[in-house]
């Protein structure tokens, strides 16, 4: 009997070993796979267990967190939802995150390993850091001015600081309140259904994620290329251009909206926004140099992130001469985001240097100590400094006596360029009104703000000055706001 008891005992030991081996299989070998299973709610629970870090504008948080006491405990709240939605994006328990909430999710949610007190500390203790904060470069006054200017319209505003690339305003209209999307209930699902079905696409960030034909505002780029290439040496010399201008190799004749463009000087052509002159200049500069200049301004760069990715602005690189002529006046396949056009204005204002734009000044730990700063960003020389000086003069003339008079600010130097872009089949759509500009305060050494404004479906006749009518006042309001807040806090 003793032998058989031992056998039975051995059998029980076998059962124990089976349990231990199986436990190791589940808990160690297959654990990563189980952890990744979409039905496993633990990652979500951990993620929403503590308040999400905040996004700060002008030193004050524009986001918050609400304790719901539910399984997924903390929900995102927004202090000024529609105003900052094109910057913050949303952070939803159902639909994920977008824009800054997405790009800085690691810091905001606390999963960024840099937030841990020591390397690998959180892996060891299984603790999760509290969310850090994201400090933006936005100027709340400029943002508000742009938002107010676009109220009731469809369009976008992007404003940057030329010397640094800091984004001062990024507004898209119509906007939306991201807060109803935060939760995980039926209310969030309803809000999502409503927003995604809206024909005006309020969740689209038109300032950075939508491209438009830039129209006449692209003439800034063409002028820079012509001056840099030596095609034009004297701003006041006649350019030997016919009106209308026959597109090379075709029978199509390009016309102007303004009169007096035949054989006009570059100065006059810029002020009047002559299509014929700039189409001809583009062809004379040639595809290679036009492309190089466009690239230097930031066109065709698919990798720009501020830190969320910006839509690629395009300047086609395989063109015949007729297409090049059209592309040089911002039509054909030329497309730009408002942010890209703000960079163009900023390059002129900044002596020809293009600063890569950015939206995050720094990220901080929950306590406020700095985690990472924007640091030095890439710089490109888009044109000779001398060209920039001449272009600045041309742009000032547009505001002082040309199509952009409504952008003038008393006591400040303002330069700008209007644009009307036609689009749709046979140019049947309502035109887009553009205005790009920069402003330099009376006491400033360099321009402190560059703005691009686009208004869709401009309610005006198809005249080139519509950019000056619809978009210029908005640009002026934004520039004024920036100049004013700089006066209040000099040196910042």
């Amino acid at each position, binding site marked *: 009997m003793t032998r058989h008891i031992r056998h039975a005992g051995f059998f*029980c030991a076998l*059962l*124990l070993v089976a349990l231990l081996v*199986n436990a190791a299989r589940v*808990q160690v070998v297959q654990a990563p796979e189980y952890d990744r299973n979409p039905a496993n*709610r633990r990652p979500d629970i951990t993620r929403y267990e503590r308040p999400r870090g905040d996004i700060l504008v002008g030193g004050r948080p524009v986001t918050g967190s609400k304790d719901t006491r539910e399984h997924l405990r903390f929900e995102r709240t927004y202090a000024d939802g529609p105003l900052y939605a094109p910057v913050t994006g949303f952070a939803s328990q159902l639909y994920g995150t977008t824009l800054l909430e997405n790009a800085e999710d690691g810091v905001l949610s606390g999963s960024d390993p840099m937030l841990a007190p020591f390397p690998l500390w959180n892996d060891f203790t299984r603790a999760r850091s509290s969310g850090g904060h994201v400090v933006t470069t936005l100027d709340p006054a400029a943002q508000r001015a742009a938002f107010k200017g676009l109220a009731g319209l469809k369009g976008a505003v992007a404003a940057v600081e030329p010397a640094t690339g800091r984004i001062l305003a990024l507004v898209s209209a119509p906007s939306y309140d991201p807060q109803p999307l935060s939760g995980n209930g039926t209310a969030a699902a309803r809000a999502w259904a409503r927003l995604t079905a809206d024909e005006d696409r309020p969740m689209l960030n038109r300032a950075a994620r939508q491209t438009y034909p830039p129209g006449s505002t692209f003439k800034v780029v063409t002028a820079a290329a012509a001056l840099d290439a030596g095609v034009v040496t004297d701003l006041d010399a006649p350019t030997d251009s016919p009106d209308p201008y026959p597109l090379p190799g075709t029978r199509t004749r390009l016309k102007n909206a303004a009169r007096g463009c035949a054989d006009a000087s570059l100065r006059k052509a810029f002020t009047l926004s002559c299509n014929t002159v700039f189409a001809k200049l583009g062809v004379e500069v040639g595809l290679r140099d036009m492309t190089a200049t466009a690239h230097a301004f930031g066109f065709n760069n698919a990798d720009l992130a501020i830190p969320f990715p910006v839509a690629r602005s395009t300047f086609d690189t395989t063109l015949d001469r007729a297409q090049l002529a059209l592309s040089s006046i911002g039509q054909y396949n030329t497309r730009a985001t408002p942010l890209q056009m703000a960079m163009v204005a900023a390059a002129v204002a900044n002596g020809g240097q293009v600063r890569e734009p950015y939206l995050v000044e720094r990220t901080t730990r929950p306590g406020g100590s700095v985690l990472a700063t924007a640091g030095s960003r890439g710089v490109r020389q888009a044109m000779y400094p001398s060209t920039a000086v001449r272009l600045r003069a041309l742009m000032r003339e547009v505001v002082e006596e040309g199509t952009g008079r409504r952008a003038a600010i008393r006591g400040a130097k303002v330069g700008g360029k209007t644009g009307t872009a036609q689009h749709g089949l046979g140019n049947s759509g309502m035109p887009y009104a553009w205005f790009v500009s920069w402003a330099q305060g009376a006491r400033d050494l360099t321009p402190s703000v560059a703005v691009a404004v686009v208004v869709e479906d401009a309610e005006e006749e198809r005249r080139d000055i519509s950019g000056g009518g619809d978009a210029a006042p908005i640009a002026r309001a934004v520039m004024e706001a920036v100049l004013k807040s700089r006066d209040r806090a000099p040196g910042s």
Partner: protein
Amino acid sequence: MSKAGITVATADPPASAVRRLPRRRGVELALIVLAVLLSVYGYCAVGLARHGTLPPGAAGYGAGLGVLALLAHLAVRLRAPYADPLLLPIGVLLNGLGLVLIYRLDLETPGDRAAPAQLVWSTLGVALFILVVLLLRDHRVLQRYTYVCVVAALVLLTLPILFPAVNGARIWIRVAGFSIQPGEFAKVLLAVFFAAYLAANRSALAFTGRRVWRLQLPTGRVLGPIVAVWLVSVGVLILEHDLGTSLLFFGLFVVLLYVATGRTGWIAVGLLLAALGAVAVGRLEPHVHGRIETWLHPFASIEAGEGANQLAQSLFAFAEGGLLGTGLGLGHSVLIGFAVKSDFILATAGEELGLAGLSAVFLLYGLLVERGFRAGLDLREPFGRLLAVGLASLVALQVFVIAGGVTGLIPLTGMAMPFLAQGGSSVVTNWAIVALLLRVSDSARRQYDGQDPR
């Protein structure tokens, strides 16, 4: 040389002198203190993790558990002084850990507090333990009640059929607001019956009957009653939809039959019957069929878009635990939902204590079973041996069936994790098992006391 040898021999105590066995009650007391301290530590860890403060009832909980354990220890000291010193501390530690886990899960389900009731049941369990140790002076007394035991067991098993089914199984009876699972008590009674019956008839079972090829078949006269009992109990359990208990009884029956007769043929017959039964039940019972499907494809419901089922949630909990666990109070095993405090209690242990803690719990059970087998080996009379082996196997099989079920090793069958799981009947029964094992181990070691070990 030889002279020196003689002097040494005379210097020794006389060879005929009795040798006293160490009783090791001090060891037991020290281990009990350790077990109580570990439980209180776990209780405090839950409070600290959840609220950052010590839970208010920590002192009371510790004192209560400590007093219970001390009373049990005193009873052992008084009436079973030679008993194995590991059995009682293991029981105290597992019961204490179970209370901690249930208290911890109560925090997630504020509307359903189970820990206080479990503490009351644990008190009853320890009281029964003390009663058994005090009143049952010799386990051989139980042999007199062989048939009383089997009748009582059958009555207890049949009783719940008269009561409404709860969650698909007719295994509960409700008396004055208490749910009692009589099948739990029946386990011990059946173990006693099997042990007594097999001890009395083992020679007949082993050596008579026809021989077919290499199998020695027992005569129908001996085999009849035991197969009848087995059939009735299994039949009743299938009527009650409680597959786990049925599996448990069958396993116990086969193990004891093998130990009693030493015939490997019994194992072959047992496995054959088990396989037939499993296939038949798996085919015929949709309930059981579903369990097997779930076991084979735990994530099928997720792929079907119906969310994770209980087994999948249980696996997620174990996986989250990893090597070292999330820490007590910091896991999310409550996602398992229904039965998280009873059948799936091990998932909480696995998630919050990790593979390390889970292995420790398994090894505690392993040690408990090993001490039972050890007592069985040390005894000389067959009833005590079979009783010890039967009770130890009962624990081993039950742990395997439920732990294997919730970790996806075998199809899941509802059953209580001994000592850990919420469930009054189970706790009381397990304390009775520990008391009987203790009594048997006391007899096993007492017989050597005062004797020449040679």
